[in-house]
């Protein structure tokens, strides 16, 4: 569809940075908020983060313990399936590699689970090797609840619904379990450079 078709009278607004955008995206300066339900607010004293599932020994950190883990500063472009992209966003958080250090597992997939019962699924290889973090600061400030604070997953090379807000842990599995949006019509992998927005893309 679309071969030879054009929209009568549409010129569009191109920007010089468009070369760095994945297909079908446009640039925003603000930081739009998208979530399916009310923003959960878990007090930090009740917050913990765990690694569970098919692991030899589950791991768990309190907020204070989590914040003492080695952290990294990350600057990445992000791409939301609703078409906006934002360049050069600055985060601080703990690498998923750090969280999985010493974990023995035969698992090939991971489900990020969150307050508000949100989940998203990823192949383990998409979140290891310096590709994903659990971020707790954005642009030098504690991450706001509406953007996923106290902590969210950050997987900037995939559409942003994979960067689950309000994350509380990672469940390692030997099989792939579609998460919340992945069960509701969104693509299982979500690579913005291949424009994998919806089922079958």
């Amino acid at each position, binding site marked *: 569809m679309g071969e030879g078709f054009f929209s009568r009278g549409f010129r*569009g607004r*191109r920007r010089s940075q468009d070369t760095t955008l994945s297909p079908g995206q446009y640039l925003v300066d603000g930081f739009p*908020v998208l979530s399916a339900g*009310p923003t959960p607010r878990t007090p930090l004293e009740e917050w913990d983060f765990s690694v569970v599932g098919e692991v030899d020994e589950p791991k768990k950190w309190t907020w204070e313990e989590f914040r003492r883990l080695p952290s990294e500063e990350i600057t990445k472009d992000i791409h939301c399936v609703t078409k906006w992209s934002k360049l050069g966003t600055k985060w601080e958080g703990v690498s998923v590699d750090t969280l999985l250090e010493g974990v023995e597992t035969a698992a090939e997939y991971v489900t990020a689970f969150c307050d508000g019962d949100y989940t998203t699924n990823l192949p383990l290889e998409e979140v290891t090797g310096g590709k994903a973090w659990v971020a707790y600061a954005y642009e030098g400030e504690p991450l706001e609840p509406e953007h996923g604070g106290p902590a969210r997953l950050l997987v900037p090379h995939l559409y942003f619904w994979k960067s689950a807000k309000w994350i509380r842990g990672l469940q390692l599995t030997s099989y792939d379990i579609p998460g919340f949006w992945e069960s*509701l*019509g969104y693509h299982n992998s979500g690579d913005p450079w291949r424009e994998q927005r919806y089922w079958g*893309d």
Partner: protein
Amino acid sequence: MVAVQPRRLLWRLAEVVDVVPETSRTKSLVLEVPGWERHKAGQHVDLRLTAEDGYQAQRSYSIASAPEDERLVLTVDRLDDGEVSPYLTDVLMAGDKLELRGPIGGYFAWEAKDGCPLLLVAGGSGVVPLMAMIRHRAAVGSDMPTRLLYSSRSFEEIIYREELETLAARDGSLEVIHTLTRSRPKGWGGYDRRIDAGMLEEVSWSPDESPLAFVCGPTPLVESVGTTLVSLGHDPAHVKTERFGATGG
């Protein structure tokens, strides 16, 4: 959950049958979409515009029509600095073609058979997917108790005002409650402030009645209404949200 067999969402070439002004900033696009599969009220579509040199822009728009309606209707709010919405409201006319795919989004959606009293809360053009629910409800003759709390800046900016009046007048189980935040006509008897906890407590069903809430509007409204409904005792899993940010659409 069971993985469903992926089915590609194809781009389709729709024909614009009519462009209907709703308010000074919003217009409804009435579309004939060959091969369109029935949507659920609350879902949206992706539109794709293509310039003569091949440049493309995509945006998402909520569906305003009921699944039962003969034609697909999108209502578009014109954003002055937008790239796509001014084209849709100012340039597009009957007879033009428009590329779209959908329906998209299975969570912010309602079918009459879902049950539960409905609490619909809208800010501005956030009323569009909620209107699809109200039209669906009317089309199937549902008497599911439904309240729409709808915040607009002014009387003139209320989208679908007359249709809402007509529907509520002939259906005792539908109530429409307006609040006007910026200006009000003389003798206005409705609310005159932003939606707050007191207003939600007056308007919403008691949490004991397990209402299903759909909240759609700009982010500050959605954040505040969502948080307030939870603090009033509503089950967070029964509060579904969708946002209409002015993000360049």
